[in-house]
């Protein structure tokens, strides 16, 4: 955290008010290891929490499928693996652009960084459009979140994920405006997490049958 602008400006040994400061209390960074990961440590609290939540949802989905495999298989026929597959490749490509943005800022090329971030975000938008088309098709077919357990979980899981894409677009914008190294690293870490979750969500919901 040393040298980070975000550090709160406070004296280190406020404790002296109460009792003498402890001797030999080395500053280990205090993030319990999170500081060894790229980006701001707090983004990793979020990433880990998200992975737990989506992981739990995917396990719940699989467990509930045991109860009604035929129903799940029938409902799954309404999904388009092709649309999901295209979206996977879109997100992977978008992630690649984010890596390039990171490399650009490392070399101090701000313009190039912003262009790559723009490409990242643009692909994110395309992902959302495909997603909306999919949802639209469901709704046209009279399918809603209340139709069946399969579709409740489908809409919840992919919907939560899509919300993260929206949030990620916002984060990309913010770090694009203030493209410090740590900001870009933090923002792209979030974006890669969204990517990572999708490559797990897609096969479990669209493909496994």
């Amino acid at each position, binding site marked *: *955290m040393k040298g*980070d602008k975000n550090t709160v400006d406070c004296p280190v040994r406020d404790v002296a008010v109460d009792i003498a400061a402890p001797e030999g209390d080395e500053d280990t960074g205090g993030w319990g*290891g999170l*500081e*060894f*990961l*790229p*980006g*701001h*440590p707090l983004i990793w609290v979020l990433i880990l929490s998200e*992975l737990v939540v989506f*992981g739990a949802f*995917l*396990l719940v989905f*699989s*467990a509930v*499928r*045991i109860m009604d*495999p035929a129903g799940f298989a029938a409902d799954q026929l309404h999904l388009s*693996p*092709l649309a999901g*597959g295209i979206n*996977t*490749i879109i997100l*992977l*490509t978008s*992630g*690649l652009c*984010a*890596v*390039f943005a*990171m*490399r650009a800022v*490392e070399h101090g090329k701000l313009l190039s960084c912003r262009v790559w971030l723009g490409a990242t975000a643009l692909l994110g938008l395309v992902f959302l459009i495909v997603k909306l088309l999919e949802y639209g098709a469901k709704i046209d077919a009279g399918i809603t979140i209340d139709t069946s357990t399969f579709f409740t979980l489908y809409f919840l899981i992919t919907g939560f994920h899509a919300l993260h894409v929206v949030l990620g677009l916002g984060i990309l914008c913010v770090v694009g405006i203030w493209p410090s190294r*740590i900001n870009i*690293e933090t923002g*792209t*870490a979030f974006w*890669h*997490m969204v*990517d*990572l979750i999708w*490559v*797990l969500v*897609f*096969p*479990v919901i669209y*493909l*496994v*049958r």
Partner: protein
Amino acid sequence: MMEHKTVSARTATWVWGVASTATILALAATFEQVPGGALIARFLPVVIIMAVASTKAWLILRFYLGLRNAQGSWTGLFAAFLIVIVVGVVFAQAAIILIDQ
């Protein structure tokens, strides 16, 4: 926060190529009829799909999220996460097949 080395453009592009190809393969696996008895035909595709998924996830973790620079304990934690999901999904499939028979 430590300084991290981002992957080279070459490696990143390779990772992207592998992951994208794997996606297409996994899609194909779901459409192809696997020869063999009902058991294999229903079990094998799921194993392949999940193997592909976890490979992609692993690539993203290591190269895009930069985990390859982190200590082993972090690598272990994320590996454990992926294993739990893969095992969960594969076991569910196994349970479905066993109940059917």
